[in-house]
Each structure stands twice: as C-alpha cells, then as structure tokens.
C-alpha cells in the first residue's frame, strides 16, 4: 500500500474548514502555523521517556529548548514539542517514539486537535489585552512562560515567540478565532 500519499489540509488552506476567512494583517497580524511540525505526549510515562531521550524538561507551564525545538510543559505528564524550524529533529524523536516499547506515554494528537496561530504587529500588546484577561506584560510574563487560559473567549494556550504571541486552541474554532481577532484588530488599530 502506498502510505502517505494523502494530502493534509488545515483550516486556512484552500478546501480547509476556514477557507475564505480573512487573516488580519496590518497593525495587528494573525498568521497560521497549523501546518508546522509539532508532537505531543501525554499520560503516564511521557515525561520519563522524553527525559530518557536527553530532552530536558522544564517545570510545568514553562518552555524549554532542545536542538531547535521548543519544549512546552503543559502538565506533569503533558508535553508538547514545537518544531517550527526543526522539522528533522522532531521527525527523529517521533520515529524513535513510535518504535519504542511502552511505557512511553501516548500521543496527545495536539498537531491535529489544536490550531497554532501567531499574533504580531505594532498593536500586538493592545490586541492581546483585548483578547486575554491575563497580565501578559513583559515584566509579568516572560519568554519561557506558558499561560493556559482563555483567549478570544475560548480555551487556549499562549506564550511568547520572538515575533509576538503564539496561541494554540481548538482547531474546529479556527474560523471563529480569526473573526474574533479581526474584530479586536479593528478596535485596536
């Protein structure tokens, strides 16, 4: 069987669920990273297995780094690896994990369940203040902090990236989220 021939379609791609929904770009810009590589492990054995691979684990709600990947610790046994620019490293980890015997945790399928979007632009701070009730000013919320909170009235995970704030949220609400950000951008601009 020829595996892997199928094409992946994410919400903002042609034929995706949010196809036709505008992503704002201006004083506030929203970009879609949902097709970027990431991999999450969750459940008993996740942390130990990753640690055994030499991947340093940050404390809960902090971000670590390993060979170009960002290591998000969302819970004791809930870890998400983001590999925006480290696809190969991540592919290696995934391949090793798939072949490994249990216990090794379980896939959390975050790459399928969560959209990954990035908010940036000159009016970023104002937009985030509208979207999120948390105090995200630099002195209160550092580059390695994670907030599991509500953004744009839906549950989300947010953290800083060099270009702005990254936000992970329920992929089925992608079109809604883009509209919510656009509405806020209209006010912030």
């Amino acid at each position, binding site marked *: *069987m*020829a*595996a*892997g*021939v*199928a*094409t*992946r*379609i*994410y*919400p903002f791609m042609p*034929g*995706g*669920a*949010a*196809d036709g929904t505008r992503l704002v770009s201006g004083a506030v810009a929203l970009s879609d990273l949902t097709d970027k590589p990431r991999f999450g492990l*969750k*459940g*008993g054995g996740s942390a130990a297995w990753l640690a055994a691979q030499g991947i340093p684990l940050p404390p809960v709600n902090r971000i670590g780094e390993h060979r170009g990947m960002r290591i998000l610790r969302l819970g004791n*046994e809930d870890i998400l690896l983001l590999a925006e620019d480290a696809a190969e490293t991540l592919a290696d980890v995934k391949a090793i994990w798939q072949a490994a015997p*249990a216990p090794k945790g*379980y896939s*959390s*399928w*975050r*790459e*399928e*369940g*969560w959209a990954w979007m990035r908010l940036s632009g000159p009016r970023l701070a*104002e937009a985030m*203040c*509208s979207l*999120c*009730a*948390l*105090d995200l*000013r630099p002195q*209160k919320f550092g580059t390695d902090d994670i907030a599991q909170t509500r953004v*744009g*009235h*839906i549950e989300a995970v947010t953290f800083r990236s060099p270009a702005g704030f990254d936000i992970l949220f*329920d*992929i*089925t*609400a*992608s*079109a*809604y989220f883009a*509209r*919510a950000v656009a*509405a*806020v951008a*209209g*006010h912030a601009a």
Partner: protein
Amino acid sequence: MNRLPAPFGSRIDRSRRIRFTFEGKPFEGHEGDSIASALAASGQWVLSRSFKYHRPRGILSMTGADANALVQLPFEPNAAAERTPISDGLRVSAQNVNGSLERDRDAIMDMFGRFLPVGFYYRTFMGPRRDSWLKFWEPMIRRKAGLGVVDTKAPARHFDKTHLHCDVLVVGAGPAGLSAAITAAEAGADVVLCEENPEIGGALSYGRYDPAVLSGLSSRLAALPNLKVLTATVCNGWYEDNWLPLIQGNRLHRTRAREVILATGAIEQPAVFRNNDLPGIMLGGAAQRLIRHYGVRPGDSAVVLAAHDDGYRTALDLLDAGLSVVELVDPRPAGEAGPLEAELRDNGIAIRKGATVEAAEGTPGNRHLARVRVGGSWIACDLLAVSIGSAPAWQLPCQAGGKVGYDAATQTMTITLPQGPVHLAGAVAGTDEIKDAIADGQRAATAALSRLGHAVAVERPVTPKTIRPRYVQSIVADPKGRDFVDFDEDLQVKDLQNATKDGYREIELVKRFTTIGMGPSQGRHSALATARIVAEATGRTIGEIGITTARPPVGPETLGVLAGHHEVLERRTALHARHLALNAAMKPVGAWWRPYYYGDASSAEEAVREEILAVREGVGLLDVSTLGKLEIRGPDAGEFLDRLYTMAHASQPVGRVRYCLMLNEMGSVVDDGVAYRMAQDQFYVTATTGAVARVYADMLFWNAEWRLKVDVLNLTGAFSGLNVTGPKARQVLEALECDIDFSRDAFPYLSGRDGTVAGVPVRVMRIGFTGELSYELHCPSSLAPALWDAVMATGKPHGLRPYGLEASRILRLEKGHILIGQDTDAITTPDELGFGWAVSKKKPFFVGKRSIEMRARLGQTRTLVGLQFPAGARNIPGESCLVLRNGAPVGQITSVGYSPSLGHHIALAYVHVDDQAEGSSVTVKCRNGELVEAPVVAHAFFDPTNARQEI
C-alpha cells in the same frame, strides 16, 4: 451671549464653532462645550421637565449625575447634557414632555399634585373591573412613566473591551488622587489614575485655588512613565478582588488592581426649600464649573447661599465673572470673619449671617428663578448659588465594603473601610482643605505601598484642622410643598413624612414606598436629607436610619459598553468546505455547523428522500465528525470504563466495539456511545455531540477522585469521522486502496480495525445508526478531506451519495435508535428504555448502579415504546404530544416522523408501563386536541431482526 472671555473656559476652543439643535431650534457652541454649557451660553436654561409634575428643570450640579439635565439624543435616551459634548448637527431634544419643552401639556400635573400623594397608585386604579388596571389604567400610566424614548431603529455602534492591570489604581484626579498617584508612582509602583472629567485636577480645575498647586502636581505627574492617566474615564463600580470597570467612551477597561485608592471627593448637597428646583438655582460648584470650564456666565444677578468657605469662593468667582452679587446669605451664626469674607466685604457685597433662603419664586410657568425669600423679604435674582456643604462620595467605598456612619459631634457623614486593599483619600475620607487632601493622598499611597511590600513609613490619617460642626439645614416641610428632596422623582419633604406615617419607617421601605433615590442620581443629592427627615419623623438618630445600600454602577453606563462586541462561537468540521462545495444546506447544532441535506431548499424533501433511499438501497456517506471522541489510555483503562459505563469493558476483547451507556449518580441516562478497544490499555470512546464536553469533564472529575492509572484525551477536534453505510458499503471500501480486510468474516459487526485507507491512517468501527451495513472511519482531521474525496470518488460508480442530518434522523428512527436528550429526559432509567441488556448485572459498581436498583424497587411507571400510525392517517401527533391513560398524562411522543421505507408514520413514545407490550394500544392527544389511538410496536420498526446490519 453669556460667554465670558478667556482665561475662563478651559475646556472650550473658541476658534471652533459647532452648530446643533435643541428642540428643533438652532444653537451654536464651541468645541469642548457640553450640551448644557452651550445651551446656557445661549441663554437656554430649561433642559427638561420633571418626572411627575412636569416642572421645568435646568442645571443643578454640572456633573451629569441627576435627571434635571437628561436629554434625548437620536440614538441615546437619557443622555447627560452636562457631560455629553456637542457635535456638528447633533439633534438634541427634551424628554418627558407632552408637546414641547416650552409648552408641555402635562405641566398641569403640577396643579393636581395634591391629588397624587405619595404611593397613590397603590390605593387606586383598581376598578371598576378586575382587568381595569391592565386594560385602562396601566397603559395610561405607562405612557406617562419613563423619561427618554429608545430609538428602535438605532444603527449598531462599536464598543470594545480590554483589560488593564496595575499595582495601584487611583480613582479621582483631584488633589488627593493626584498626590496619591504621584506618591505611589514615585516609589516605583505601576499606577493608573482614572478621572471622569476630561482634565485632571478635580476641584483645582474649577474652584478658586492657587493655580500653582495644580501645575506643580501636573509637572510631577508628567515625569512619571509608570503612571498612566486615563481622563474622561469613569470608574463605575468596585467588585470582588479589586476588579473595576473603567469606562472610557465606548471602551470598557476591565481592570485588576492590587491596591485601590478611592479619592472620589464629595458631593455638594442642595438645600431644601419651596421651589428649590427652579432653573437658575444651582449648586455653587455648578456655577464655578460653568465659569471656569466653559466660560459661561451663570446669570446676571446672584444670591449666594453659603454655609461653607466654598460658597464664599463661589461668590468671589461670580464677581470676577461680572455678575452682580446681591447678597450672600450664610445660615451660620455670625462669628470670626475669615479672609474670604473680608474680601467679599471689600467688594461691597452684603453678607447676611444667621439667615437662610426660605423659598423661591419663578417667572411665569416657573421657567426661571425670579426671586428668593430671605428672612421674610423677597430679593430679586436670576441665580441662586447653593453651597451649604457636601457628603462624601460613598458609592464606590460602600461597594468595596465601606460602612457609612454619622458623626453627631461634627454632624458629618463618615465612611469607614476595613483594613485591606482599598483605601480612601481626601474629601471622601473627610478632609476639607486642599492641603489636607494632598497630605491624605500621600498617606493613602504609603499604606498601599506598604501592602505591596515597599519599604515605606506608614503615616497616620490626616486629622482635619477644622473640627467645628458642619452646618446642617433643619428641614421643615413647607406648608405649600414643592420643597424637593429628590429632584429625579419629584419627592417633597411631606412625601417622606407621610410614608413614615403609613408605617414605612425603615429607610429601605421609605425608599421603596416613595421611590426616593431610585432615579438617575441614585440618591446623590437626597440620601442625607432623607436620613435626616426619616430620623426626625420616627424619633431615631441619623446613624440608626442610615442610607440605602449602594449598588453598582456608580453612574449610568450604557448596555452597549457592558455588552461590548462578541463574535458568536462556531465550530466547523474538517469537511466544512466539502459540504459547501456539494451545496449542502448547513444547519447549526450547538456551535457546530452540520449538513442538513444536500441540495437546494426548493427540493429539500426530495433530497432527503433520495438520501434515505441511497442508504437503504445503495450506499451513503455521513460526516460524523461532531461526535465526541475520547481516548482512554493506561493500565486501568478497562476498569475506568467499567466504573463509568453500564456494560462490561474490562473484559472487552481488543478489536471489539461495545455499546456504552452512561448514567449519572441518580441512575438517569446521560449519554451513550461506543467503546472500541484498540489495545489492552487503550479505548477509543464516542460520546454524543452535545454531551461530550460534559462527559469529558465528568471523566476527569471522577478520576480526580478515583486516581486510577488512566489518561483521558478529548480527540473530538483532532479526529474526524465518516460513516459509510448501505448495502453497498463494503463494495465501496473494498474498492479503495487499503490494508484492512472488510470482508464479513474478517471484520464482523461490532468490531474495530486500525489500518490505512487511501493512504490515510484510520480507525474503523463496524457499527451504525442506520441499521444497514455500516463502517465508521475515523482519521486525523487534517487527512479527513483526502479520505472523503477518496470515498466519494470510489463510491460514485456505486451510487454513493452524501447524506445529511435529516436523513440520518429518519434512518435512525426507522431503527428505533434513541437520541439522548430527545428520547430521554432528566430522569430516564435504562429500564424505561428497555435497555436492561445494556446494564451489567455482574459488575460490583458503576456510577448510578445503586440508584437504578433502588428505583427499580420503587416501581417503574413508564416505558419507551414504538408507535405506528396507519398510512394516510389524517392526524399525526407531533413531538411532545401527550400519551393519556384514563384522561391523565402518562407519557409523551419523543420522536416522530414519516418512514419512507415503511410508508407510514412511526414514533417513539413513553407509555404507561402496563401498556408497554407489543399489541397494546395507547391514546395520544394531537396538537389540535383530538385523541387518536396508536398500536404499540417493536422499537426497530424497520428490519426488526437487524439482519441488514449484519450482512
């Protein structure tokens, strides 16, 4: 015509003229003018008619806090003319007038006042018939009630919300607030200073004070980058944990402050005497605001009623503004003359001590003040400035837990706050002099800083130097009335006294019976006087009477700013665009969009029929991605499901799929689905679309208690589901590129397989809601469109067509499958559904087990059965129609529909337990009341032996 030259008029830009209309007449003002100031500058003093008596009313306070100066704007009723800026072309009109402001036909109400004593409406308007109130009196009163008119065609406006965080929030940028904010910011705290006026300074911006004080504070303020000043921003409430709404125009800042300093100042109080409501009678602060902020001369010929230094300052301001001050009346006994008094006397102003204004009279129609009576003689004037004292602005402090008291020695209202993150500063805390207020602001800031962990020396509260008792007006009802205590509600002294005579003696009862303090000013100008009148009338002290509870908001706020802007949440499956491309009629189900049927609305019925036919005779494809999908992993996964669901799962073999039924602790059915055991330590469980959020949360909750070794994952969005169903389903799947053996023997009913179909990794379950051969293919959502395309393309030669929710509902009804929430209610047991087969008798425990055992012993009263109606029946009952037994309701229809496969209507219904047997007949009451008989039949209307799903 009343405009003063600069430097008066700090808010206006004389180079910019703005034209607007009031009551249809053109007016002109300057940029920066409020509606009231622009009208006053043009000599228009009457702004409104009062609530009950329709008396002309005008500027009272210039703070926008009372009904006197509420006007109608095109899209905003009850707008505060004293605060709302004018804009080009703005159409302003008066409210609550019958005719026009100038000629209000309802002004006659003022003559009939004696026929309308307090609470009169409770004692009359009841006859002559029982429905007279509803049919006659109420409509009449409703037309008279209310102030502004809401424009039901108002266009949508944009409002937005944002969040603000700070170490210290200071409310009020008067001397105390400025000094508190500066002190806190200079110590390094993050400070927000919020001021409702367009400029900082408070009394310093309009009162007669040394300008150097304000400019000194302003320059210190400007040097502090960590001090954010929000002017024209109202702090309109205090809520738990220092959560405060700051309203700035159309924006709501939801603000969290670690410490709050309330420097909200004091509210100048009016005097009570006959006709104290005439336009031209205003508070001293209002006259000063008109002069300094707007450069408007408040009259020509003034009398000043002063029982406070501010009154003397006002008189001097009036002189500076070119008014003739006829006399200053000071009700306090003669005593030591201060410098202000000397200055006035130097200007030749007559000062009368120990006297007061006893009454006023107006011009014809009471349109303006004409004269006041002092010591029995009348003095002609067109302005009476009243400055007899003030009350601390208690609203925010009281919301923050402050208690109002009354200090009998100084005759002042006091506010005390418990130790905590809210502090008072300045006039609200009882200071009188500017320098005391500034010192008190510093003191409050250090208290806040100390709580924030700054090393500061906490100072003691400022003790005001003046401890002599404040002046208190003794209030005696004028025999001829019209001595208003509450301008908003047209309440006079005798109204309050009469209420106490009727037994409404507690302050809250007085308020409720008379409506005092319930108008737009919410008691700002009446609470203190009310307490005094009620105390006097009931022989108690003012402290015992107290004031009514201060509730948020502090001042009016629009529903728009509270509502903000809110996008409506919607969720889309990964196949959304596929459905749109196929011309699906999309329908919301909860937040989800689902295809209802495919095709045009004009041929909806036909489309549904064809979709059903395709499933029954060929093959259909349904997007079931909205189904809840949960993955339970870990060594205790089987045990976990055993405790949560009614069937046995610990013993379920890998590769098998089992129905699962969830009960709550009461033993009522709350959800169902299927569980596919993918591995010894892994189950893939479905839940109904509407229930999955709750089921998932409940699973986590139970396991927080049980602490089993399991992990629960909600894969609802991560995975998509495609149901391929119909006699030709297997042919289609086998024609796809795949590594799963779909043959009958290799993949029997109620089993599951993992593999790859069309290059897409899938989890396939052989189950189905339609009663036909069915495979449910679940795959990662990003690959669902690819899988859909492959199935559609491969199915095409087999006549495959996608079907929607409506066809799905009929297909399931033909099989008698229940829908949780539709065919069940909050107390449905498995027995009532005939689901004894789905409940393990062997398991020692599952949620709800004990309760269904108990409920079985208490006796079952109803059962869900199938009903059928003959083809061509004239009257088919609808959903929820009652099933009667001896005329009494015993159940209802839960689902009903026409079965194209059977050619007649079928229904699921609760019937009396004694009628549950097939062949019984029950009585159903149709929508139009007609009773029809229907025979009880088996649940599975179509293919009762379930042969088709097993092929």
